[in-house]
């Protein structure tokens, strides 16, 4: 337990939580058979990430006109190919792309078209064809389908995200327990909770997880050293630096847990704060800040995973994209297609995933949004099939119910 009391590392993760980063992970790795070594990280960008700024199609002739003052200038974008670049805040991920370890799916969407954050997040995380179709998450059902072994599940974060709710018991942990505690209390409560289906399993799992995370964090200590946010020094830039350091620290600590022999195979994290209705900025500004946290988080994972990076795929997904046209307040409203980032040492090099519909007026979905050409479920099907070895039937029926007509993306791993 002493590792938990380390003020530096507790402060670090707490700072991460303050910047809207939280993580959940599940699925302790199987013994070192081939697929058991493989790791999957899903980052949910909550609030609808603007794909046209994250990976701007600067070579699309309609891009600059639609975007006006929030357009990323072609010369500022980090070049991917003749059409696409990455936002300058994603410099670390661009470095991966140059090694063939990061690709974009620039026109992806879930099957939901209501443009409601809450309904769309439900569809994204549940993997269902329509909102509120199932109360469990597709990652939980994916682990169930990989089955045949006892799977441990763990979430880190203050509330349990839908994407990993389900039959597989999910543990959770987040920093901040303040006392060493009365050693009798858990046993007394264990008795009182014996017939309680909600509190009983939760307390037992919570205590077990606390012990495991303490060990993992002790192991991860060298990697996390020096990750504490700058102690002081005013200014907004310092705040941004602290946010990046905190996000990187979350990435490294997560990587430390994943590298353990009994560490999780599948991890889910969330970053919120993408709902940029006003003043979203261009090369600098609000959205650039969120993207730089995302970049730091991914690079923290990359650096912390070391050798394990070659067995890892990281996918970012968001509930929907934003309007192609800048709105009246220097921001963007709820749209449809957005960009997913697929990264990792286990990723097959290649170009853009899915077709680019272009931003021609006639090509826009309902005259306003990037038209989706790839179903988000198809992207995840491809990753789960090629990287984690799930079979087609499970993907079409239990992991993504009634989705036989949604083709899996190929050539990913």
């Amino acid at each position, binding site marked *: 337990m002493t590792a938990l009391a380390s003020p530096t590392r507790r402060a670090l993760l707490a700072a991460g*939580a303050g910047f*809207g980063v939280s993580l959940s992970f599940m699925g302790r790795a199987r013994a070192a058979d081939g697929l058991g070594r493989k790791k999957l990280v899903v980052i949910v960008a*909550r609030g609808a990430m603007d794909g046209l700024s994250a990976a701007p199609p600067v070579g699309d002739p309609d891009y600059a006109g639609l975007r*006006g*003052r929030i357009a990323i200038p072609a010369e500022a974008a980090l070049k991917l190919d003749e059409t696409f670049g990455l936002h300058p805040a994603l410099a670390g991920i661009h470095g991966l792309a140059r090694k063939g370890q990061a690709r974009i799916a620039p026109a992806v969407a879930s099957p939901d078209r*209501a*443009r*409601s*954050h*809450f309904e769309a997040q439900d569809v994204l995380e549940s993997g269902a064809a329509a*909102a509120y179709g199932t109360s469990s998450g597709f990652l939980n059902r994916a682990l169930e389908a990989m089955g045949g072994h006892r799977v441990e599940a763990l*979430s*880190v*974060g*203050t*509330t*349990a995200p839908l994407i990993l709710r389900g039959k597989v018991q*999910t*543990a*959770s*942990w*987040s920093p*901040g*327990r*303040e*006392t060493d*505690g*009365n050693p*009798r*209390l858990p046993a*007394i*409560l264990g*008795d*009182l*909770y014996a017939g309680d289906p*909600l*509190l009983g*399993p*939760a*307390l*037992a*799992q*919570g205590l077990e*997880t*606390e012990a495991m995370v303490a060990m993992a964090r002790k192991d991860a200590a060298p990697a996390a050293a020096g990750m504490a946010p700058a102690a002081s020094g*005013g*200014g*907004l830039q310092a*705040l941004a630096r602290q946010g990046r350091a905190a996000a990187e620290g979350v990435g490294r600590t997560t990587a430390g847990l994943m590298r353990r022999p009994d560490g999780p195979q599948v991890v889910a994290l969330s970053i*919120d*704060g993408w709902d940029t*209705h*006003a003043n979203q900025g261009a090369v600098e500004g609000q959205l650039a800040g969120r993207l730089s946290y995302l970049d730091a988080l991914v690079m923290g994972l990359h650096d912390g995973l070391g050798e394990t990076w070659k067995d890892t795929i990281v996918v970012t997904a968001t509930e929907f994209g934003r309007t192609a046209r*800048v*709105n*009246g*307040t220097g*921001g963007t*409203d*709820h749209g449809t297609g957005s960009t997913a980032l697929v990264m990792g040492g286990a990723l097959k090099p290649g170009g853009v995933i899915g077709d680019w519909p272009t931003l021609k007026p006639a090509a826009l979905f309902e005259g306003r949004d990037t038209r989706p050409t790839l179903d988000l479920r198809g992207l995840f099907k491809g990753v789960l099939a090629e990287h984690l070895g799930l079979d087609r039937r499970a993907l079409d029926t239990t992991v993504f119910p009634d989705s036989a007509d949604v083709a899996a993306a190929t050539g990913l791993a």
Partner: protein
Amino acid sequence: MTASPDLAAAIAVTRFGLGARPGELAVVARDPKGWLRDQIRRDGADQPAGPAVSTAERLAGFREYQMDRREARQGDRKDGDDQDGKTEARDPVRIAARMIREGPAEDFLARAQLAATTPAGFRERWALFWANHFTVSGVKLVTATVAGPFEQEAIRPHVFGRFEDLLVASSSHPAMLLYLDQAQSIGPDSRAANRRRRAAGLNENLAREILELHTVGVDGGYGQADVTEFARALTGWSVGGLREPGDRQGRFLFRPQAHEPGARTVMGKAYRDGGVDQGRAVLADLAARPATARHLSYKLARHFVADAPPPGLVRQLETAWTRTGGDLAAVAAALVEAPEAWTPAPAKLKTPYEFLVSGYRAIGARPGAIQQIAPTLNGLGQRAFSPPSPKGWSDEAAAWAAPDAIVKRMAWAEAFAARTARGLDTDAVAADALGARLTAPVRTAVARAESREEALAVLLMSPEFQRR
């Protein structure tokens, strides 16, 4: 449902209210329903004690900070890093940090103290429901300081009035207009847009969330075109800025020059152009729609009674709503009268805030400093005045019962007991807090505890106390 008076009292105080204070159950047992009915009153919910700071004052402070920041930036550009003390004192980041920390902390503490001490726990819970329904979150810099005043000005006075009035108060309040980006939305063909050189236009955030969250709900029968039309109708709804006369700053201001001219059609109904009245007319119709009655009745039943509420209960609330045209006092009375609301088994897990408040109530105390509650609420995922989205805090156990959260509740219960248990008769506290809901195993575990601290922690963490 014919619960005994003692059990009915325990239900009234915990399920409808915020938990029992010592001696409260005995009083309530004389007439549990009457005790609830008497808390319904036309002039709304109680206001937290302390100096009432208005939204306008808080926004004035915020705008001053923005100007300082601008000046400081220009200063930086001129003479690099200025290290002298004057700059330090006026460092806008420090000022902002102080402003964002102190004002809301006072607001939140005063509100928690009200919750911990009020003899009208149902009235307070009813107000908290509506404050959460019309969420203004402090996650944005500009709204961080006005979430408290918003609740006092737009929510509390109206919670037992007509829903339409509450909806208009919320939708036209500066805090909501800023939180959901309405204040800057400009009609694309308005005079203001034609005068401006750079692109100006609609922001549909508020219009969408009023439809989806505040009124008819996501299945309420609207489409993208309705969202856009409603957003056009709302153009001009704004907040007085620094260029306006002093008495208009930080207050609702209709800007006719930003209003999109022309008639609008929202959900099949046409609205002629009437300036500010056009948006008001849409709100009035949305408030009166059957889908709104259904959406809100379901949400109320889920909040007070069960995550999956009994359909009969939802119907009774809906009937009361429809019969009275959305009179919230009548809906509250219908909730009190509904037999389904009095089932003995507690189905709801307390949210972190409800848990902490009921802990203080159980020992007849109140939080004395923000540090006693804020860090724990952060750790449990319910940061003061800061729901993660316009949807507000979750009303479902699944969101709050993550294993880590239960361990953290236990840690708080221990720390709280260590601070407060000295001198308490913990057997009496247990009987006073849970009344007829106190089960034999919990009574025994409390009685057998090695210390008062352990006894109180066991009581607070008991399944009965965690639920309501």
